[in-house]
Every structure is written in C-alpha cells, then in structure tokens.
C-alpha cells in the first residue's frame, strides 16, 4: 500500500527532515510514527499526502510513485488518502453534517450519495444525534470525530493522522483511538504520528520510531519506548521483543484493553 525507498527531505538546502527512509506498509496495517518533536513525523505524513515532494527517493502510494506525480493529479491522490490533524480543521460556519458532506460535495459526488453516506459515517463516529450542531457547540473529542468522519466518508484506502489526540485529554483520546481502530478493521491502512505513550503502549501495533529524520526502530507490536538498535538501552523492551519491521505482517488487531477505555467515552454507533 505504501512503500518508501531512500526518501530524503531537505528544507532550504540544509535542514534534513527525513534521511534515507526505506520501509513498506502493507494494506490494512496500523502504524504509529513516534519520536520527539522535530524528528520528522509530520514531514513524513506531509510527504505521504503529497503536501511536500521528497528531495530524493520514491514514495509509492496505492501503486503510484507520488514523488513525481504531476500537480494536477494530486487531488485524485487525496481522494484515496484521508487526513486527520491535531487542530481538526473544521469549517466553523458549517454544521457537523455540512462539514462531512463538504468532503463529498467538493469532489463532485451526487446529492443522493451525500445524503446516504454522511449519516452512515456520522453513525460510525457516534455523532448521529449531533449532525445539526456547529463545531463550537461540540467538545474537542467530538470535533475530532467529525474530522475523522470527514476523512473517512469517501472510504479512503489510507488514513493519515498527525497527532489526532494531541489536543485531547487521555480519556477522550481513548475514544478516538477506538474509532481509528474500528476504521482500521474495515481494511483501511492507518498511519498515525503521535507523542502519546499510553496510547501506543495500549494498542500494541506496529511502531516506527524516528530520530533526527531516520527510522531508528520498527517493531510489529511495539511500545513507545522500545529498544533502538545500538543506541537506546533496551530497558522497556516489549513482550514480543524487537521485530525488524512489518514486512508481510498482517495485523490481527487485538481489541483495545477495556481497562484503558474511559467510562465517559461511549460509542453511540
């Protein structure tokens, strides 16, 4: 689904954001990108959605090398790649329904499809009863659900999430993660950049750790503080032990530990 080959991104000719990254992400995988601020997580997300072009290397997404995708074809890439951000990016003067419908309308989907798909996805994210609310009338967690609904309403192959729980409290974050997990189980590949130790440790999915633009660790069922080859001491080694990478790995998607789910975050769908 996603294949990086020797990807390097240099800003302004000197700042190296990504350094010679090579990896493969299979269809249906759930991948955490972890690492400190400035390690290149967000740059990698932006490269995957072709917000940026790599300075060198190839980025294959859904069978196309998007490094040399012509500008006018980018919109068609975006239709198969959903994106979710820390700041939600909702339109304040549109209702929940309109915000989600917007994603379908602007790619020319007929009204009938919009009327059919939007309630479905709102039900999935548990906001069916709040369709007519405005974003400011919602909590942060609910706003993020709207943004996930918008990213997913077009059934993308890949969902990219950049710190989706960055603005949310831990309890709310768990609800968002359950939602992303559910979306992942429909076969959508999820790549999520995060700082959140608790979430990564609870989910036990593939973890890719970045440090100064390099992929320094890649474990198939990792935790946030995993052993880095050579460098970091393997103090917090996971039960599975370090795995080289996720090649040929199909996640069995273990359910989130119920203990981690906050009582307040119930799913309506």
């Amino acid at each position, binding site marked *: 689904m996603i294949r990086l080959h020797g990807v390097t991104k240099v800003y302004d000719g000197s700042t190296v954001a990504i350094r010679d990254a090579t990896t493969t992400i299979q269809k249906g995988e759930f991948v955490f990108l972890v690492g400190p601020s400035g390690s290149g997580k967000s740059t990698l997300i932006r490269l995957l*959605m*072709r*917000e*940026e*072009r790599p300075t060198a290397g190839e980025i294959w997404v859904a069978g196309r090398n998007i490094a040399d995708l012509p*500008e*006018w074809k*980018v*919109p*068609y*890439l*975006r*239709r198969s790649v959903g*994106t979710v951000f820390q700041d939600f*990016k909702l*339109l304040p003067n549109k209702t929940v329904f309109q915000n989600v419908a*917007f*994603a379908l*309308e*602007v*790619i*020319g989907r007929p009204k009938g499809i919009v009327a059919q798909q939007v309630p479905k996805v709102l039900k999935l994210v548990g906001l069916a009863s709040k369709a007519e609310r405005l974003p400011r009338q919602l909590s942060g967690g609910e706003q993020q659900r709207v943004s996930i609904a*918008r*990213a997913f309403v*077009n059934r993308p192959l890949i969902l990219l999430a950049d710190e989706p729980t960055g603005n949310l409290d831990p309890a709310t974050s768990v609800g968002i993660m359950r939602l992303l997990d559910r979306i992942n189980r429909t076969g959508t590949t999820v790549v999520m950049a995060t700082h959140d130790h608790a979430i990564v440790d609870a989910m036990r999915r593939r973890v890719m750790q970045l440090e100064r633009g390099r992929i320094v660790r890649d474990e198939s069922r990792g935790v946030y503080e995993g052993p880095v080859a050579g460098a970091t001491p393997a103090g917090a080694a996971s039960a599975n032990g370090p795995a080289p990478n996720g090649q040929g790995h199909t996640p069995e998607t273990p359910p989130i530990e119920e203990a981690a789910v906050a009582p307040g975050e119930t799913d309506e769908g």
Partner: protein
Amino acid sequence: MRAEYVVGEAATNLRRNVLLVLGAILAVFVSLFMTYMALVVNEVGRNSASRWQEGITIIAWLDDADLATHTAITNEVNGWSEVERAIYVGKAEAWEEFQDMFADNPALVEEVDPNAMPASVRVDLVDNELHTVIVGRLGSLGGVDGVDEASEAVEDTLEASRLLNTGGIVLGVVLGISAVVMISNTVRMAIYARREEISIMKLVGASNWFVRTPFLVEGLIEGLVGGALAVLAGWFGYRWFISNLDLGIIDTEVPEAFLLSRGLLVLLFGALAGAIGSLVGLRRYLQESK
C-alpha cells in the same frame, strides 16, 4: 460541477467584499466607458468627414452679377480638365437650402434676408489632391468673391477624431490595466477570506478547477457588470448628448447597429478583463504546494 454551486460560491465572494467589488466594477466601468465613447466619437468624425468628402470639395462664392455672367463662369470652370463637375447654385436655391438646413430654427430663417444668400459654384474635382491649384485658379477668376474649401474642415475633423480616438484608446488601455489589477485584488481578497475552506478542499481532493472556477466566475461577473454599465451609460449618454447639443454642421448621428456592435465588443472586453484579473489573482494559488 454544478452551475448552481459555482454561481452560489461566486455570489458569496461578491457579498463578502462589497466595497472592493464595487471598486473593481467601477474601474472596469470607467475604462470601458472611455473606450466606448472614443469608438463612438471616432465614428461620428469618420461619418461626417466621409460625407463631406463625397460631396462638394470647393465652393466659389460669386458676386451679384447677372445670371448670364454666372453661367459663363460655371461653364468655364466645367471646362477645366481637373474638374469633374461644377454646379451652379443660384440665390433662390441657396435660400431654399438655407431654409432646409435650419428648418428647426424658424426664428433664424425669419431673420435672414433671402437676398443675402450669395450664388455659388460648387466644384467637384477629379482628384482631391489638386484642390490647392484649383482654389488658386478660382480665386483669380473675375466675378468670384471668395473660395472656401471643405477639405480643410474635413482634414481638421479627421485629425481631431483621430486624436480623440487615440487618446481615448490609450486612456482606455491604461484604465483597463488598472481594472485588471483591481479585479485580481478582489479575487485575492476573496481567496484570502476563504483560505481555510480552500485548504480543506485541497485536503479532501477537490480538483484544481473546482476550487478555481467560483473565483473565475466572480471576476467574470465583475468585468461583465462593469462593461454593461459602461455600455448603458455610453448609450444613453450619447443619446442625451445628440438630442440636447447641436454641433451644427457635424452629423452626430451614428447608426444603432454601430452602437450595438461596439457595445457588445465592450462587454467582451469587460469579460476578458474579469477573466484575466481573476487568473492573475489566482496565480499565486495555482503555484502553491511545492
């Protein structure tokens, strides 16, 4: 892409920046009004000039001799090889002509003594280039009081209308550029006002044309409205002008078909200014994402 959507979005943009939009429309209006008027004035000048050129080139005014003398002079002039035709206009005919010309001004006709109208010989030349020679020769003839050439007036009028035309077009072009700049500014403002929406559109994969078209339509509307106002103002202004001001010998009448065809041309220019303006405004957006 639904037309309803595009027009709706364009209308929203127009509503958001009313002052800026009015400024852009005004800029289009002024520049196109100038151009339109220059075209009309030029046509008026050209019409009058060509009518005179077809007609009598030289008039030799005769003194109060008898008809036989007058006929003799006319015959002599007719004998010159450079002359295509010389026509004698007697006092009575001149008076009739005068009455016709000023039929709408009976007071003036009342005032003038019919006998004050001089007889004349009106001379058409084989080649208008020879007029100085003939004017000289006519002046030296016995019985000729004076010689007038229409050609000088013709030249003057042509020159004036050429000047007006060039001046009008130059001014129109300069103002036209300012109109394009104004439109591109309003479009840029509209883009700025909707940058959030646009960034989300791009995020979810709206095609570039889907994002651009409403802004293009906005510019087009501004250009067309400005152009339409210019044509209306020009048309009615011109009508008012010819019905209220009498420029005497200059024939100010221009056919409706001319006004209409040039009006459509002006509208087309308005649309063009709108389209170019919004494309310029969109240019930075188009180059975005590197």
